[in-house]
């Protein structure tokens, strides 16, 4: 009796699983074949894990000042040396990764959400709504990125939160454009007409039928955007408008070590290298994602 009950269940799970898996598998297969993407992903996830574990693995307090140990080069005691106030650079980089990644990811997320909604509304409804939204985006895009962020931060005042807001605002038009374009092409597909002919309301068509079909360009753009968000955040901090000292942020550290670049190059070298590494990591990962998610790419 028990066996009879079990039988159909077993059947369904057997018939069912490979189907769902196959899409995910083909995506993973494409992604893992791409060595650059794997390298990028490794860097990105390693730094994320390090950022999460920072309080546990950092050898020193990142803000602890010890003037007796200033300008020390790399040693067994301080792996990456100390800065002008005798703070451990490795610890500062580890804690700084928390700030940089948070700023990068949060600002991208915020910008993406607003941008996606605006883009999808513009693309779906068209007419004057489209014109208004896209002209505002054009104006925002006409500013050089950093200049716009500078302007916003100088209005809001320098802080980490305001850096996130500034970068998010700058991210909005980028996402809005991509999403609008994708929406325009998906909207023309016959299935959207078919769903409309079934009496579906606009909000349902937008969020249930159009959005899921344009996720891949959004994911790719978001991954790539995190990299430029981190750079912009560092640049703002470098200029003294982002994260405020003594909080360890990569850009702040760069700016801090700038005065001593001749005597103690390691103070600027290591934060610079880390920024480079993370940005390259995100870019490679993003490119890999794009190739894997694009149905037209064969490799």
């Amino acid at each position, binding site marked *: 009796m028990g066996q009879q009950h079990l039988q159909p269940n077993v059947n*369904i799970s057997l*018939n*069912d699983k490979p*189907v769902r898996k196959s*899409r995910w598998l083909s995506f993973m297969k494409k992604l893992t074949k791409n060595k650059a993407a794997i390298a990028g992903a490794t860097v990105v996830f390693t730094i994320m894990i390090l950022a999460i574990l920072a309080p546990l693995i950092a050898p020193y307090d990142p803000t602890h000042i010890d003037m007796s140990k200033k300008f020390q080069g790399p040693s067994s005691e301080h792996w990456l040396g100390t800065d002008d106030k005798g703070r451990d650079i490795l610890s500062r980089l580890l804690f700084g990764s928390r700030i940089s990644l948070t700023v990068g990811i949060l600002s991208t997320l915020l910008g993406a959400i607003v941008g996606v909604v605006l883009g999808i509304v513009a693309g779906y409804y068209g*007419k004057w709504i489209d014109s208004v939204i896209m002209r505002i985006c054009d104006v925002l895009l006409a500013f050089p990125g950093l200049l716009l962020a500078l302007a916003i931060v100088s209005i809001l005042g320098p802080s980490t939160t305001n850096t996130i807001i500034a970068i998010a605002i700058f991210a909005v038009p980028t996402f809005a454009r991509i999403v609008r374009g994708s929406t325009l092409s998906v909207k023309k*597909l*016959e*299935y959207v*007409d*078919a*769903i*409309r*002919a*079934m*009496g*579906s*309301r606009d909000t*349902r068509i937008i969020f*249930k*039928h159009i959005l*899921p*079909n344009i996720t891949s360009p959004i994911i790719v753009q978001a991954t790539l955007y995190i990299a430029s968000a981190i750079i912009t955040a560092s640049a703002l901090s470098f200029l003294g408008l982002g994260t405020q000292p003594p909080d360890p942020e990569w850009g702040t550290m760069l700016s801090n070590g700038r005065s001593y670049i001749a005597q103690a190059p390691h103070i600027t070298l290591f934060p610079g290298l880390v920024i480079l590494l993370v940005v390259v990591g995100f870019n490679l990962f993003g490119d890999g994602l794009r190739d894997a998610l694009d149905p037209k790419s064969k490799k």
Partner: protein
Amino acid sequence: MSDLNKNKILEVKNLCTSFFTDEGEVKAVDGVNFFIEKGKTVGIVGESGSGKSITSLSILRLIQEPAGKIVNGEIVFKGENLLEKSKKEMRSIRGNNISMIFQEPMTSLNPTMTCGEQIAESIRIHQKLGRKEAKEKAIEMLKLVGIPSPEKRVKQYPFELSGGMRQRVMIAIALACNPELLIADEPTTALDVTIQAQILDLIRNLQKELGTSLMIITHDLGVVAEMCETVAVMYCGKIVEYADVKTILTNPKHPYTIGLLNSVPRHDQVYDGDLPVIKGSVPSPFNLPKGCRFVSRCPHAKDICHNQLPELKTMDDGNQVRCWIHTESWEKQEEEVASNS
């Protein structure tokens, strides 16, 4: 007469739908009249660009504004004019009272949702059902449209199904809320011949079973012969011949209908060389002839055809034809020509 009105599920009166482009107004549908009786099937026949699809989209008010617009006419569904309905009222009619099957089963399903979800969704738009009940109904619908092992198929994505299967899923979606009228826009055009026959059988059986009225849009006269009771032949946005299927097939009166029928290959006929064709092509919608729209391709065209648009005239056998040949003016002109020479 009132009895006939009662039986009419849909009546289209003087429907005019235009598209407004930079080059000017295109009258895609220009004064179309026809009706569908309860449980009956009407076929709309014509070549590409004759306005048959636009007619069906107009009925559901799915013409994309501002490019296209229903300029004039009435669409009376169960005694109520659909053109006077609010957007919300139209939404509750679409899918629930009138639903539609599209031409391309390959692109008419959302690739990111399983078939079951899509059927369940169309049910849940119109009926207050729980997720589980809607899913059960979806399985039931798949069974109804003859999909084997529906419990397995509901969980599959459209890309895992063949074209015929997808068209069956489309039919399941369209019939999920038991609509009174089903509009099928070239339901078999994208399918291969064996599957076409299956799908037509399915539609016909379901129509009988559920009592749905049917409007079939097609350019395939075989489909018409098989499915329809009444046929409207469209050319350049106008109905040129409107009659019951038997009359159309055995005694067509408009030169265009005759041409269409002649160009269908018949198994009981031997052809040496090419099949007969209708010479020329459809005139540009920006530059329609002043007179009869078929004039440039008509083998019988005379002066009057070039100068004046004929009216749709009812013949003795109830057949309606828009052609000068079947009017008194035609004979008069023939006499004139004879006396002149």
